[in-house]
C-alpha cells in the first residue's frame, strides 16, 4: 500500500457509507527499534490549513474552540480503517462524529434562526 497514493486526500466513508470529508492528514508514530506505524488519520479544516500555514491552522482551531464547534481536528485511529483505495472506509458513526461539527453548528446557530426555517 502507498500511503500518499492510496490514503491521503481520499474520500472518507463512515459506517453507513456516509461521506465525512477527506483524509487531510496522516499521523505516523515513531517507535524505538520498530518500524513507524500509522497512528491516526486526520480530517478537518485546520488540518488542511496546516499544510498552507501553521498560523492559519491555529486561527481556525481557535475559532472552532471559541464557537464551541470542536476541540481540535478529528482523529481516526488506524484500527478503525476498514478499506483503502478509491475511498477510505472507516468504522465511525459519521453523523454523530465531529466530522459534521460545522454542519451541526450552522444548522443550530444560523439556519434554524432564519424565520420559517423551523417546522
Amino acid at each position, binding site marked *: *500500500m*502507498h*500511503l*500518499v*497514493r492510496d490514503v*491521503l486526500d481520499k474520500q472518507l466513508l463512515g459506517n453507513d457509507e456516509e461521506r465525512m470529508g477527506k483524509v*487531510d*492528514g*496522516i*499521523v*505516523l*508514530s*515513531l*517507535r*524505538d527499534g*520498530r*518500524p*513507524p*506505524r*500509522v*497512528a491516526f488519520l*486526520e480530517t478537518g479544516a485546520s*488540518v488542511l490549513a*496546516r*499544510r498552507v500555514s501553521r498560523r492559519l491552522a491555529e486561527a481556525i482551531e481557535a475559532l472552532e474552540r471559541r464557537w464551541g464547534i470542536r476541540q481540535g481536528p478529528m482523529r481516526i485511529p*488506524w*484500527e478503525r*480503517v476498514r478499506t483503502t483505495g478509491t475511498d477510505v472506509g472507516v468504522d465511525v458513526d459519521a453523523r454523530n462524529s465531529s466530522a459534521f461539527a460545522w454542519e451541526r453548528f450552522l444548522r443550530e446557530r444560523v439556519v434554524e434562526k432564519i424565520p420559517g426555517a423551523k417546522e
Partner: protein
Amino acid sequence: MSEIHLELVLGRRVFGRDGRAVGRLEEVRAERDGDECVVTDWLIGPAALLERWAAPILGILGRSGRSYAAAWDQLDWSDPRRPRLTCGVEELRTMRGPRWKQKTGQAPPKEQPERRHEREEQQRKKEKGGK
C-alpha cells in the same frame, strides 16, 4: 515515542550523512500487520513521485534523477524538517524507471524492490558461506 505528520514532511529534501541532498521524500510504502499499518519504505526522488501518481509511463518524457527506496530504519527523523539518512546513499535500493530498460536493453526484474533486497542478502550469505 514521537509523531510526524506525513502530509507536512512530504516533498521535504532528504539529506545524506555527508549533508548533501539525496532527493525529496515523495511516497511512503506501508503494509498492514494485523490491526496495525507499519511503514516499510520511504521512497525518495522523481521515480517515487511517478509511483505516487501511478504513472511510470511519464518517465519516458524526461530524464529523471536518481531515486531510492530507503528502508524504515534508514531515515533519521530526529529533526522532521530535515530528515537524514542513517546509512550511505550507496546502501539504498535504487528505484529504476522505464529509461533503465532503454539504456540496458533488458527488462527490469519483475520482483519488488524489497524481494530483490532479500535475494541480494541471501546471495551475500551464500558467498560468505562458500569462502
